[in-house]
């Protein structure tokens, strides 16, 4: 119902510390031939022959890993928090679930946008459309990853909640067939395959999150 501001401010220094290794990753990326056509958080096919797919996607994987970690499960905490004083007056209403969704989306955007801005500032972008589409995909993928980790936390298996999005990201980054499917376009259209793929994952994740939310005891 109400934000826990003191909690948020307490966490800020730790957030800053967690951000440092990611800033090193970004510094390395921008200093070593950054991709001029693909957003750094987006999966890409190897640019050079013989290059490992996983190595070439290390920034995309870092984007997902740090993006998920830096949230520090705050959205999950918000969703699970049930102050009896307000819960008894409101019940476990849908508004909280919707606000949780908005928090996840806003956090992912707040994580993605500065990096997109840095890319525009530091890199001579070849293909503006592809860069924006890549940023959109990275932002959406991160949102889905956060909701999947939330499923693990709410279902009492936090490790699985983190493992599943990590495996999904690794599959997109390192398995050629999966990556081709993800980065290809829907036959007969100009729509990238990641749009329906992420839409489907979003629906599945949202449905599971909603079911767990409504079935979870307020203990």
């Amino acid at each position: 119902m109400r934000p826990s501001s003191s909690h948020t401010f307490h966490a800020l220094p730790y957030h800053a510390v967690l951000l440092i290794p990611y800033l090193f990753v970004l510094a390395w990326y921008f200093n070593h031939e950054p991709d001029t056509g693909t957003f750094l958080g987006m999966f890409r096919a190897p640019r050079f022959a013989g290059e490992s797919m996983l190595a070439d996607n290390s920034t995309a994987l870092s984007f997902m890993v740090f993006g998920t970690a830096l949230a520090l499960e705050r959205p999950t905490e918000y969703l699970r928090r049930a102050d009896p004083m307000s819960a008894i007056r409101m019940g476990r209403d849908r508004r909280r679930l919707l606000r949780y969704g908005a928090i996840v989306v806003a956090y992912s955007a707040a994580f993605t946008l500065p990096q997109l801005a840095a890319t525009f500032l530091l890199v001579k972008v070849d293909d503006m459309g592809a860069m924006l589409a890549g940023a959109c995909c990275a932002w959406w993928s991160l949102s889905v990853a956060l909701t999947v980790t939330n499923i693990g936390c709410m279902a009492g298996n936090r490790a699985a909640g983190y493992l599943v999005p990590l495996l999904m990201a690794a599959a997109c980054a390192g398995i050629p067939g999966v990556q081709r499917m993800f980065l290809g376009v829907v036959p007969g259209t100009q729509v990238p395959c990641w749009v329906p793929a992420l839409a489907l994952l979003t629906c599945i994740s949202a449905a599971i999150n909603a079911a767990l939310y409504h079935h979870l005891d307020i203990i």
Partner: protein
Amino acid sequence: MNVRIHALTKVIRRKTVLDRVEAEFEPGVIYGVTGANGSGKTMLLRAICGFIRPTSGYVSIDDRPVEFNRRLPERIGIIIETPGFANHRTAWQNLTDLAEINGDFDEAETIRLLTLFELVEHRDDKVRSFSMGMRQKLAIVQALMEHQRIILLDEPTNGLDRYAVHAFMEEMRRQREQGRTILIASHHEMEITEIVDRMCVMDQGRLTMDG
């Protein structure tokens, strides 16, 4: 309002926290619920509110089953564990925020309760400056301010000084006269004996009622 517990069982991670609890709580009576820590007192109050999904059995209020995790049509005033106030808002703002949810704010009653618990002069202070006892008093005020029909209080005298405990006892008697159904859970049996009409004892999830 009549609260009935029908063979209520709750198992959490293979541990039976409520074990076939049967009870009936009538209006105009103060019930005390005692028992050691972890005996199931708080879980019983949560079950009455619909905060937990029973493994079997159910709770009914005036013969209507309480639905799990749903807003209750009946007004329940409650304190369970640490009261979660917004620290950056004043005591008064916290109370009005909560009252706005039900859309029924009785300013005169709220001021009466704040005065009773010696908080009226601190009503414009931010809750972050409150001591534990002051927070507890504020929690009692929020539990009573909307003329709730059922009052569930878990360890309500935690952190209260002698004057506040006395004020609390007097207020409970007043609420009883108004026909409220009152449950007070405490592991300090002696502390609540003075005001309760009937005492219930929780032991390993089982409830026995005296008298």
